[in-house]
């Protein structure tokens, strides 16, 4: 097990109700992992892995637009012309639906032949993306860990359809964390994949060392969160008074 994989152990301390899932994009067949034994949409592979088993999927295991986003197939004129979304009532007309396609993140064509999924406790590979399904309090800690040593802002991008692209592919191709709220994406909502109101956070591999280190170091529940409004205000005032005193002395 690599150091990076060991570092992911810290995620177990969250006691997530639904386990984090690591995803890997591969050109060649992964060793020691079984092929998925059913046909699913890309978004459905996340809850499938959360059931507790690692697996990989090839183009034959997908329905919906997964293979298009993964560069496994040629363009799909039916979808990319924007004809499907209006028929489903998701968008007003094809021109609105069509505009989505240049915006959604994709993997370069022909570069991925296998996608491996594994829940955190079955990870045998260093994930390219770690997808965390969290409660709000847990997500708050992760967002703070994303900013703790860097001051980095968070951003969340998405479209009402093809939510899978933003959750699985965007962090991989941009190196940025992304988040969404369960129930925001048309397809995942229609399929009732998750209880509503959970935060789904996707972290690319290159942010994981920083985030795990910050999680080891920072206070998960700062004192301010336990004091209530008045207590927090009093604490901030005390800090500012002390800092002002120092500043004045320095002048």
């Amino acid at each position: 097990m690599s150091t990076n994989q060991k570092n992911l152990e810290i995620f177990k301390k969250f006691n997530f109700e639904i386990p984090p899932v690591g995803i890997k994009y591969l050109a060649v067949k992964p060793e020691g992992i079984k092929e998925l034994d059913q046909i699913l949409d890309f978004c459905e592979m996340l809850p499938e892995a959360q059931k507790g088993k690692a697996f990989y999927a090839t183009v034959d295991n997908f329905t919906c637009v997964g293979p298009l986003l993964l560069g496994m197939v040629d363009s799909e004129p039916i979808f990319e012309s924007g004809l499907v979304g209006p028929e489903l009532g998701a968008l007003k007309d094809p021109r609105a639906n069509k505009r989505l396609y240049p915006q959604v993140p994709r993997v370069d064509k022909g570069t991925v032949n296998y996608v491996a999924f594994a829940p955190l406790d079955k990870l045998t590979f260093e994930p390219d993306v770690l997808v965390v399904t969290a409660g709000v309090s847990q997500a708050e800690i992760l967002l703070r860990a994303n900013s703790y040593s860097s001051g980095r802002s968070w951003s969340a991008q998405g479209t009402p359809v093809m939510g899978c692209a933003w959750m699985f592919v965007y962090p991989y191709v941009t190196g940025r964390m992304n988040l969404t709220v369960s129930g925001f994406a048309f397809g995942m909502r229609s399929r009732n994949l998750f209880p509503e109101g959970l935060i789904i956070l996707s972290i690319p591999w290159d942010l994981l060392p920083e985030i795990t280190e910050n999680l080891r170091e920072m206070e998960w529940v700062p004192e301010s969160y336990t004091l209530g409004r008045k207590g927090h205000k009093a604490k901030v005032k005390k800090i500012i008074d002390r800092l002002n005193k120092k500043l004045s002395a320095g002048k």
Partner: protein
Amino acid sequence: MRDLSIFNEFNFERPPVGIKYLLNKPEGIKKLDKKLALCEMLPEAQKGEAFYATAEDFECVGPLILGMVEPDAIFESGQVGPRLGIFKEARANRRVYPSIPTLAKGSVRYIVFSPLDKLTFDPDVLIFTANSDQAEILLRAYAYTTGKMWNAKGTVVIGCAWLFIYPFVTGELNFTVTNIGAGMKARRVLPEGLVLLSLPYDLIPMMVENLKELDWVPPDYIGGREAHSKIFEEVVEAVMKEYQEDKYSS
């Protein structure tokens, strides 16, 4: 004033709040009678009365981001965040300040808040406190005619800047979830897990039109996975048939 009554159909537990940024004193609206942080003015307006606030009505960094006061070296040097345990060190906290949206200095002296049913002005920003079901409809309405992706932004501190200022200065929709920001969580401003969605004035007409037209709960959302798959397959088959027939005819 534009008809915003379509938003009443959501039956929000907490009413949407309109905000206006003014250089001169608003007429016919009372001044806030207490000191609050900018984020706390949202639930204050949700109690049901409109009010305006000036620089002396604020606690926290509101006046700074509204351009009402000079920069505060204590905050902007990043000294406070690490002492609250939010950032590792001052340089991380400091990096937040150049990224947060602010209003030009001296350009706003009054900020007005009003719940939807007491609006007497066209809001510069309209803020919704929604559950995820309601937020999904609003996000779908945003993309319905435009195909635009949503792009939410924020920082772990000074969440008010992203909620109140960002949509106004950029013309972009923004959203956050209650209690994923440190200040609002520590102050216990709103219950956890609500979606706070801010709309700038220039997106409101489109949103109103789209909400009038779109199916708020599409059939796909009702029947579950199997029903969705069936509808989806039927749609794809029908579209494919049309496409192939046309392709072969040309």
